[in-house]
């Protein structure tokens, strides 16, 4: 199998982690560049072309979140994968809000990292979908203009708010969507923080589209962060 040569920028202040990532990525056929600080990463992004950025959140200087925000401002389609420590859920959400595509928690397995990285790069290289295009993921089909959802060809009845939520998640398939963003999208600013509403809705949607709602295949929970619709 031929692997396209992606060029990855590794941004982490810890040399041992950069070294581990560099050896692994190179071994797997990727090209890599390194930056120990956010500022350094910004100048590299400006001068070279990368296919994805692996970005540590906890760094001296401007820090990961701000670096993410500035990269996103200059390169709207460059995939950014955030690397964070276990107990900083707020940091992950902040990074996703700042434009990160996905996150992975330290210490991670390379297998999982590669899966996320490849998915992010693939998404970025796909032509931008039209707003009204039909989205098909697995045996779920969503028709935005007809406001219709089909599961294995059979129509699924959804309330208008359930439909809006599902469409939003399917449009961002493969990416974690933080709770607040979903709440804001469906109910507007006033319901931010009312997580229980969202959980109730998700459980309703799961009952309608999943074969086994207790073990969801499509509508996945990203613990303490939000939800993710599985990738096509």
């Amino acid at each position: 199998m031929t692997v396209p040569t992606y060029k990855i920028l590794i941004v982490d202040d810890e040399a041992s982690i950069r070294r581990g990532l560099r050896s692994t990525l190179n071994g797997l056929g990727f090209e890599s560049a390194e930056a120990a600080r956010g500022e350094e990463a910004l100048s590299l992004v400006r001068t070279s072309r990368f296919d994805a950025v692996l970005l540590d959140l906890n760094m001296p200087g401007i820090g990961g979140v701000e670096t993410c925000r500035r990269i996103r401002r200059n390169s709207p389609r460059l995939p950014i994968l955030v690397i964070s420590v276990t107990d900083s859920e707020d940091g992950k959400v902040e990074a996703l809000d700042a434009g990160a595509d996905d996150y992975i928690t330290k210490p991670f397995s390379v297998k999982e990292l590669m899966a996320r990285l490849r998915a992010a790069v693939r998404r970025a290289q796909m032509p931008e979908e039209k707003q009204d295009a039909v989205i098909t993921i697995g045996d779920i089909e969503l028709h935005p203009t007809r406001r219709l959802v089909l599961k294995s060809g059979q129509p699924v009845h959804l309330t208008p708010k359930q439909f809006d939520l599902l469409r939003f998640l399917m449009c961002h398939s493969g990416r974690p969507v933080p709770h607040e963003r979903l709440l804001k999208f469906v109910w507007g600013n006033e319901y931010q923080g009312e997580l229980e509403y969202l959980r109730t809705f998700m459980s309703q949607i799961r009952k309608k589209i999943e074969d086994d709602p207790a073990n969801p295949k499509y509508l996945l929970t990203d613990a303490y962060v939000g939800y993710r619709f599985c990738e096509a």
Partner: protein
Amino acid sequence: MMALAGGLNRKETERLSALLSFPAKSAMGILGLGALTAGALLLHLNLATVGPLYFLSIVLVALHWGFWQATVVSAVAVLCECYFFIPPVYSFDVADEQGYLALIVFEFSALLVSRLSAREQSNARDADAQRRSMGMLYELSRRTLQLDLHQPPGPQLLRLVKEIFAVDAVAIFDSDLDTIDVFGPFPLDANEMARSTCYFEVNQDHDDLDLSRRVLRLGTAPIGALLIGGRLNPLTADAIASMVSITFDRYRSFASETKAAAAHQSEQLRTTVLDGLAHAFKTPLTAIRTASSGLIELGDLKPAHADLAALIDEQAVLLNSMTSRLLQTARLEAGQVSLKKQMIAIADLIEEVAAEQSGKLGDHPLQISISDKSLATRGDRELLAAIVTQFVDNAAKYSTPGSSIKISAQESASEVLIAVHNKGSLIRQQDRERIFERFYRCPETRHQAPGTGIGLSIAKKAAEVHNGHVWVISDEQEGTTFFLSILGSKGEVIDRAHL
């Protein structure tokens, strides 16, 4: 014995001086009266003038020397008046009843006035003594407030009582610390006397020994004893005892406060060290895992190499989970976890945990039974989920192979009761409390599955911060059930109008 002799000698001396002064003063009074009579005879004063002069001299004697001296002087005055001034003069005879009456009235008035003056004098002396003792008590209370509470209070109080009240001997017994501090000579063994005062609760003033014994009390409980050797008003001794008791109490509260503060500080330090360590561990762990999982991902390894790489990978994951859990329990114990409280539907919580754990249950089917879908509570979702996850994880690890795991939730009074049941894994009676302690693992099962002995201690702490409770029941036939009880919030069920 020397001390006893010393005490008696002093008393005898005082009594002797009192005995000596009585005839001397009486003689002086009689002499003065003689001089007054002689003067009156020379000046040819009559009875009407001499009577008040005698009266005045008796009052002066009463005021300055005392009642008994005045009585002697008044008797002599009556005789003089009778002999020199009441007709017939130069005879002790009295001519008529009027003369007798005059003498009786004179003697009676003299005695009455003497008595009143002497009492006034004694009251004034008492008031003065009381004022002085109030002053000393005030001084004692002021200086006890300045005591160094880092040091035991006994020796310090001893010094204060000795200095301020100038007593011959003081002993303070602290039954709590079982120490006795003694200053000066006591007629009997001070140590024994102080202990018996405290244990038999004796409050007594021994006038013959010049000794006051007082029980030191906190509320009604005896906490020590105070012995004072020397002449002291019983009320003053009571007040000193109260002051010493209060100081003991202050010392104890201060000591326990200091201890609590120190414990809190050391707990904070421990958490900070753990926190720092845990974060410091993450970087090398990440590098190790990147390397181990990277090796596996690169493939092309000989079976033995692949096996070793997998071993490194697994152990790095285990070490990481230990680090995270250790950190979490340290934070919970130090009260550093800020709870993100929100309404939680119990059914959703259990479903979420079940979904998350479904891949880790091996051959154990999971059954969920919730009596009422509207069961809800207010709490930190992450922590409550961690409790249920821990119960399920335990069940999966230790239950009989192939047996099912049941999660149930029901309402019990105002509480929500969540139970996780599995077959097998009997937990001995003596281990049922201990398994919730950090690092404790049952000796029978510790080799059955990998674990750190931290998970259940997190569950316990997490329940406690919600004012909840966790426990386990275990029985050969029934199997093992872990319980969590927390306050329910059924009244605030989720508004489903938006569905």
